[in-house]
């Protein structure tokens, strides 16, 4: 992502009037850059999900009543949408992370391959969310 940002900055430098600030609306990140941002945002969101997740686990293990409360909540419309959202965020973070690990092994690091794998990550993410939705409803 750093490299991509560098390319963007260099591209901007070639304009006649060089902007002295980074105009976020003018930057069109390549798909790898968008994925990188999504990886970060999903990671931060997953950290925010940790406390409610432990709370739910605690409640579900507290006794048959607690278990029923958790199950009933997860079966409501809100519960299903939240579950789907969290599963989707997890899947995207997971897939983007796997892509990252392959790149650490210097697999798929040319620009063409990296852009292709970023698209594949997004497509697999959407496909997975659809699959989760089918499973949840």
């Amino acid at each position, binding site marked *: 992502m750093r490299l991509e940002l560098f390319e963007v900055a260099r591209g901007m430098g070639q304009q006649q009037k060089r902007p002295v600030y980074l105009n976020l609306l003018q930057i069109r990140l390549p798909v790898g850059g968008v994925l990188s941002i999504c990886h*970060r945002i999903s*990671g931060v969101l997953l950290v925010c999900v940790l406390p409610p997740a432990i709370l739910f686990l605690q409640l579900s*293990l507290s006794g048959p009543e607690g278990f*029923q409360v958790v199950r009933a909540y997860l079966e409501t419309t809100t519960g299903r949408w939240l579950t789907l959202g969290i599963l989707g965020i997890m899947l995207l973070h997971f897939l983007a992370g796997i892509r990252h*690990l392959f790149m650490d092994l210097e697999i798929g690091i040319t620009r063409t391959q990296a852009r292709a794998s970023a698209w594949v990550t997004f497509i697999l993410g959407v496909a997975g969310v659809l699959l989760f939705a089918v*499973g949840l409803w």
Partner: protein
Amino acid sequence: MVSRNQYSGSTRKGLGEWIVQRVSALYLAGCVVAFGVRLTFWPIDDFYEWHEWWSDGAVRVAAALFLFAVVLHAWIGMRSVFLDYLNPFWLRFTMSTLTAVSLVALFVWGSYLLALGGLR
């Protein structure tokens, strides 16, 4: 002979975090897949079965390690986000401290749950 001085300065700074982030990622990914497969193909629909599953020593150790890996992974990830986007020192310091304290608290809470609470 390689002198220790060769590695002084910032040469290897961040390498430890880098490797911890990747090793924890592999463990977390493996656990999530195993957990997902287990509950998808052999669903648990009953409190006693659920409780019994979580009382299994192997599950508890795996879950405790998972929690530990999550805390490390979250700390390194959040720290790099803060370092990149939070420029004023006081803001970065405050957010880093709050995150660290919260993650330690989550670890203590989760460990307690796995060791004692709810699993009597």
